[in-house]
C-alpha cells in the first residue's frame, strides 16, 4: 500500500460572524489512514470537512494536504473528493456518466470514460448497471455509485460527510465493512464525518472526538473507548455511567473519589490526566454497563456500588438492570446472558462490583447530551 497523502490542520479557527464553529483545531492525519471526526450535530465537524475540501476558507490557521498549504486553492483544484450526506448524484445523468463526470471535465473521450466506468462498476459490484439512472437504483447501490464517482477523480483524500446516515440499520452496518474494505484496497486517506460512534469505532484507524467546535481527544478507537481524556469523550462514545464527586486521594495512577451518592470509589486516572488531578478537585468517574458484576450480598468497599433497582429488562444477549443513579439519571448495568438463571431484583437494593481498571476518572466537565 502506498503511504498516501496526509492532511494536517494547524491552529485552525473557523468563525461565522461572532460564532466560533471550530476553535484552534490541531490534527495530523497520516496518509492512508481512515480518520473519523466524531461528535454530535452542530459540533463543527462538517465545517472542518468543508475547510479541507475548499468550500470554506479558514478564518485562521492552515489546512495542509500532503504538506502543501491549501490557502486560496478552490475546491475544484484540490486533490480531494467529497461524498455528500445526500450523495448529490446527478439525477439526469446515467450512472456511468455520473461516475466519470470528473473525466468529462478533463476532456476524456466517451470511450475512455465508458471503460473506466465499467471497471469501477465492477469494483463496487454493480456490473452492467451503467445505463440506469440514479433513481432506478436502491439506496445502498446509490451509495456505492457515489463512492465510485468520488474515486474516479483519483483523489489523494476522500472526504465523507455522514454518507451512511440515510440508510437503514442493516445496510448501514454492511456498508461500514464495505467502506473499510474499499479504503484498504485503494489505500488513500479517508476522512469520515459521523455522529455515530459505532461507525467511527468500527471503521477508523484514528478518531477525533469533537464538542462545540473543540477537539477533545484524538486517538484510536480502543483508546477513546477505554481511556477517554474528557468527561465528554467518556459520555459520548458508547454507553457509560457517570459518578460525580471530588478527588479524595491520588495513589499513583489511581484515585479515590468521594462520590456524591455511592461513597468512596477507586478508579484509574485516564492517561491524559495522570499527574494532573489534584486532591479536593471535582472529578467524574465512568464505569461502563458491561463492566459491573453482581456482588455477594453485604459486600462493601471502594469498588462496590449499592443502589435500588428501578426496573429490569431482557435484551437477548444481556440482562439490563436500571438502578437509581445520580441526578435523576439511571445507573445501567448489563449482565451478559450466558444461560444462567436470573432473578428479578426490582425494588431491592443490590450491590455491584467492578475492577479498578474498568473505572476511569477524569476532571469534571460537560457531559454529552442524551
Amino acid at each position: 500500500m502506498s503511504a498516501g497523502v496526509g492532511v494536517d490542520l494547524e491552529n485552525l479557527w473557523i468563525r461565522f460572524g461572532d460564532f466560533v464553529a471550530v476553535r484552534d483545531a490541531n490534527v495530523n492525519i497520516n496518509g492512508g489512514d481512515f480518520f473519523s471526526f466524531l461528535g454530535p450535530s452542530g459540533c463543527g465537524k462538517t465545517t472542518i470537512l468543508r475547510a479541507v475540501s475548499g468550500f470554506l476558507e479558514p478564518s485562521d490557521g492552515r489546512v495542509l494536504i500532503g504538506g502543501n498549504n491549501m490557502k486560496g486553492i478552490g475546491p475544484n483544484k484540490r486533490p480531494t473528493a467529497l461524498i455528500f450526506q445526500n450523495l448529490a448524484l446527478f439525477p439526469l445523468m446515467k450512472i456511468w456518466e455520473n461516475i466519470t463526470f470528473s473525466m468529462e471535465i478533463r476532456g476524456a473521450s466517451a470511450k475512455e470514460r465508458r471503460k473506466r466506468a465499467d471497471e469501477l462498476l465492477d469494483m463496487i459490484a454493480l456490473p452492467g448497471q451503467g445505463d440506469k439512472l440514479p433513481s432506478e437504483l436502491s439506496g445502498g447501490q446509490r451509495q456505492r455509485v457515489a463512492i465510485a464517482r468520488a474515486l474516479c477523480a483519483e483523489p489523494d483524500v476522500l472526504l465523507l460527510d455522514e454518507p451512511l446516515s440515510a440508510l437503514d440499520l442493516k445496510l448501514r452496518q454492511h456498508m461500514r465493512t464495505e467502506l473499510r474494505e474499499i479504503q484498504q484496497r485503494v489505500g488513500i486517506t479517508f476522512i469520515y464525518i459521523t455522529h455515530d460512534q459505532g461507525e467511527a469505532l468500527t471503521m477508523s484507524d484514528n478518531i477525533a472526538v469533537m464538542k462545540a467546535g473543540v477537539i477533545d481527544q484524538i486517538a484510536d478507537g480502543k483508546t477513546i473507548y477505554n481511556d477517554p481524556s474528557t468527561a465528554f469523550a467518556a459520555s459520548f462514545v458508547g454507553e457509560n455511567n457517570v459518578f460525580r464527586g471530588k478527588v479524595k486521594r491520588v495513589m499513583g495512577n489511581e484515585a479515590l473519589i468521594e462520590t456524591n451518592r455511592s461513597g468512596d470509589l477507586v478508579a484509574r486516572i485516564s492517561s491524559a490526566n495522570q499527574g494532573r488531578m489534584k486532591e479536593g478537585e471535582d472529578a467524574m468517574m465512568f464505569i461502563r454497563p458491561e463492566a459491573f458484576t453482581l456482588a455477594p450480598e453485604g459486600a462493601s468497599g471502594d469498588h462496590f456500588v449499592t443502589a435500588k433497582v428501578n426496573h429490569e429488562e431482557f435484551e437477548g444477549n444481556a440482562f439490563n438492570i436500571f438502578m437509581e443513579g445520580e441526578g435523576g439519571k439511571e445507573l445501567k448495568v448489563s449482565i451478559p446472558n450466558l444461560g444462567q438463571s436470573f432473578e428479578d431484583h426490582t425494588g431491592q437494593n443490590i450491590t455491584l462490583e467492578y475492577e479498578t481498571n474498568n473505572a476511569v476518572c477524569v476532571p469534571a466537565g460537560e457531559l454529552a447530551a442524551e
Partner: protein
Amino acid sequence: MPRFLKEFFTRNGVGIGSLMLGLVLFWTIGLIILPQLSMLDFSFRPNLPPPEVGGPKDVYTLENYKYLIFGPEGGGQAFNAVDLKVFFRTLVAAVCVTVFNLILCYPIAYYLAQSKGNHIRIFALMLIIPYWINEILRAFALRIIFGETGVLNTLLVGSGVFDTPFDFIRNDIALYAGLGYAYILLMIFPIYNVIESLDRNQIEAARDMGASWPMIHRRVVIPYAKPGISSGCTMVFMLSAGALAAPQILGGPSSLWFTQLIYQQFNDNSDWPQGAAYAVVLLVTCILLVLAIMRLFKVNMGDIGK
C-alpha cells in the same frame, strides 16, 4: 366512467365535483375551444354582407388563406410580399425577444434561486411591483424613456455620447425593450421555480470534481432547469408573437406587427374572415414552431407544467 373521474367524485362529492368539472369544461370548451372553432369556421368563409350570410354564396373557400400568400387577385404580384414580410418578421422578432429574455433572465433566476435571505424577497417584490401598472401605461413610460427628446436621449446627447438624438423608436429598440420587459417575469419565475428545487450539493459536487462554472451550468443546472426554461420560453414567445399594445405604442411607423394586421382586418376593414384566417395562421405557426423546438431540445409536454 374512467377511474380518475370516479376518484374525483368520491373525493369531492357529486355536487361540488360536478360544479368544479362543469366550470372547468365551460372554461375550456365554452370560452376557448368553441370561439376558436368559430374563428376557424370564419376563416374559411367569404366576407359577405349580413343579408347574404347563410345564402348561396356562403360556401367554404380557401380565399382568405390564398390572400395572405398571393395577395389580392390580379394585384400584379406573385406573392403578398407586404403581409408575408410582416408575418415572418414578427416570428423572427418574437424569437429574438425570447432568446434575449432567456439570456437576461436565466442569471437573475439562478441568483434568486440560489441565494438565501431577506434581500431575495425584496428583489422579487421589486420585479413584481412594475406589473401593478397596466400594460399601456408601461408602454408609454418606455416611450418617454426612448423618445427623441426622452430621458435616454437627453442623457446620451447631454453627456456627449451622441451628437444628435438617436431614434430608438424607428430602429425598433424601444419595441424590443418593451416586449422584453413586458414578459420578464414569465421567464424568471418558471426558471426560478425549478432551480430553487435543485440540490445545492449537486453544484458543489460538480465543483469539487473540478468543474468550471460554465461546465456546471451546462451539465448540471441547465439540464435540470430545462422544464422551466421551456415553459418560460413558450410563454414569452407566444405572448410576444401575439402582442398588440407594445407594437402599437412602441413600434416605429414602418414596423407593423402581424397582430396589427389582424387587428386592421377585423376593425378597420371589417373583414372578419380575413382577420380570422390571419389569426389562425399565426396561431398554428406558433404552435408548430414551439413543438418543433421542444422536439429539438427533447422537452416533453408534461415537463412544461412543472
